[in-house]
């Protein structure tokens, strides 16, 4: 895996707000390999969202260098960059005045894809995110449930066949059942389509369950990076604290829930 060049690479990246008073991202270096599913975990204000947005230039970095598919992002037109990177927003970010089909087809439309082709692609995508019963196509976002909206958000991010998908707490606002179902469905898509995914979450359990590697951020700095097993060996107190909760939950669950076959 180390031999292939990284698809996204951050090198000593820094970003401050409020005229330098607030250091949101502080000297972060991080490589994301092709095909990898990376989760970034941290509390609010840890800089994880800023770090994600730097990759498609929703925010521009002050220091360091970011490369996407081998190109320095500063050398690329930001609009074109965003059209080739899928982005899933917190609670969907769907356009409320557009139907599900128009939302999903927006990026291909911006790229000038013919209408008939977009229509086929929309069906394909709705199928992919399992909204394939045909009745959702012409609905407006407010007519959908939270989980359905997020599925549309995923379909929209995938519409222009990106190699990279960035996800900003995509499942955060959903009920636990929908959330885990959607997470697993997305992970399956990631594997099936050979995507490279960076997902932000504040939920360590979700990160461990879905991601190949987990990055832990705190106060703008990258505190730890590794597979769940590698993180377990980390001796940092904050990382330990983050891992503690899912560990305890897992133990409690094991205690209280008898195994299936015992029933």
């Amino acid at each position: 895996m180390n031999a292939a060049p990284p698809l996204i690479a951050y090198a000593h990246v820094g970003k401050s707000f409020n005229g330098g008073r607030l250091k949101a991202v502080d000297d972060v270096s991080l490589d994301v390999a092709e095909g990898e599913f990376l989760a970034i975990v941290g509390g609010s204000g840890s800089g994880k969202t800023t770090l994600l947005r730097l990759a498609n230039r929703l925010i521009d970095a002050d220091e360091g260098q970011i490369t996407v598919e081998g190109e320095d992002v500063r050398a690329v037109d930001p609009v074109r960059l965003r059209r080739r990177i899928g982005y899933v927003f917190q609670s969907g970010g769907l356009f409320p005045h557009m139907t599900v089909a128009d939302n999903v087809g927006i990026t291909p439309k911006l790229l000038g894809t013919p209408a008939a082709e977009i229509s086929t692609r929309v069906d394909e995508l709705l199928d992919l995110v399992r909204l394939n019963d045909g009745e959702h196509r012409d609905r407006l976002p407010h007519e959908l449930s939270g989980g359905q909206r997020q599925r549309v958000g995923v379909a929209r991010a995938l519409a222009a066949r990106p190699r990279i998908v960035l996800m900003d707490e995509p499942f955060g606002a959903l009920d636990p059942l929908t959330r885990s179902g959607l997470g697993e469905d997305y992970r399956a898509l990631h594997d099936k389509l050979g995507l490279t995914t960076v997902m932000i979450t504040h939920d360590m359990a979700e990160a461990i369950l879905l991601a190949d590697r987990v990055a832990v951020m705190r106060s703008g700095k990258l505190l730890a990076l590794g597979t769940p097993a590698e993180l377990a060996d980390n001796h940092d107190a904050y990382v330990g604290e983050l891992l503690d909760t899912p560990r305890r939950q897992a133990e409690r669950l094991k205690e209280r829930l008898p195994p299936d076959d015992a029933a």
Partner: protein
Amino acid sequence: MNLFSDPRWAEALSHLPDYLGNHVRVSVTALGLGLAVSLPLALLARNRPLLRGALLGLASVVQTVPGLALLALFYPLLLALAELSLSWFGFDFSAFGFLPAVLALALYSMLPVLRNTITGLRGVDPAILEAAQGVGMTPWQSLFSVELPLALPVMMAGIRTAAVWVIGTATLSTPIGQTSLGNYIFAGLQTQNWVSVLFGCAAAAILALAVDQLLALIESGLRIRSRLRAALGALGIAALIAATLVPTMARPRSSYVVGAKTFAEQYVLAALIAQRLQAAGLSATSREGLGSNVIYDALVSGDIDVYVDYSGTLWANQFHHSDILPRETLLAELKTILAQKKITLLGSLGFENAYALVMPRKRAEQLGIHSISDLAAQSGSMSMAADYEFFSRPEWAGIQKTYGLKFRSQRQMQPDFMYAAAASGEVDVIAGYTSDGLIAKYDLVTLDDDRHAIPPYDAIVLLAPKRADDGALRAALQPLLGRIDIATMRAANLRAAGGNAESSPSEVARWLWGRISKRN
């Protein structure tokens, strides 16, 4: 009696194509211009707090200027601009009527459009804006396919408010020479023709409601993406414009325009002149309800061809003289001054509409008062009333000084009520207008100005520079000159104030002509 059997409804209805057509044209043009300026400004200002504050502040200030004043201010402004343009670029334009009305109304329409557009655009959820950026929209794509559609309901509410305001305020463009539904209201107020006032108000209200509903239809069409609705709304607006354009287009362009100021006598005289021109086979229309200063400038620039003014008014207000000359001398002087401005003073009609001190006839006889000198001896125990401006006019200062008048009390009053107050003895003396029909109605008498302190106010016919050598026009108006004595004009004015079917200006003008021509 059936309310609608009154012939004044038919009379009002006959003006509708002209008034409504002009009203729609001036409103739609103003609204179009207002939108064309406000929408880009709102887009420009939405993310610039300083510009936004300045624009909204300015638009609010404009809104606090009364509509009538705003319209009136544009007239001298454009007049000055027209002169500048003539001296710099060699062409001028008419500062009368359409242009000042459109500009003032457009300015008036800006606040609701600016405010609602900015509010609507700023109200779009930042998360949605970020999503637009995230899916790869350029700022323009984001504006047109996300921000504007989402802001549309709020924007349209502003546009609808602006449309209703503009249509309502356009009724005030009558005094600056733009024909509108306001003609009904201004003429009706002056001649106490409440049918006309009501008709004008109702027509303006219905027009405003119709446009508002059509805009609402377009809005809902855009919102629910129904091409049919949007198209129906647009079609409705287009049909409205077309319907009001057609009759005016079909009508022959009249060659002579007769001007009239804002009071009943002027409406009657303008109707009389128009009727004389038509009788001579010349086509004529009238532009009524023009402000005193507007009407003279309109004559100079040729926007109107003929109107009746008063010698003392021109002398004092237009040419700023304060000395009081005898009647004939003043007329001769005025003729010379006007000739320098290429305006023809065709002649006087025969009566004066001057300020006069007026008393009940019986009381004056009892006290032996025939002149102001007689009055001066007894004024210390008397009370006096006048209109709102009289006591601050130079005429009053002159009268007081000349005769040494000193009243026990002075009060200001609505002119309509003044005569009745004198007749009932509530006040002893009033400053009335010599040609007012109410003097005869209430059996009042005007006191003789024996020491000539009141300037003469002969009614005179003025012709525009371009009509100076117009033989047909002169010939048609010749029979009016010197023929209308004060008693006849008072009787005519009294009829015009009658508030019934025979009191429309054109009816009174016909009656007046009947009286004049009999004496030939």
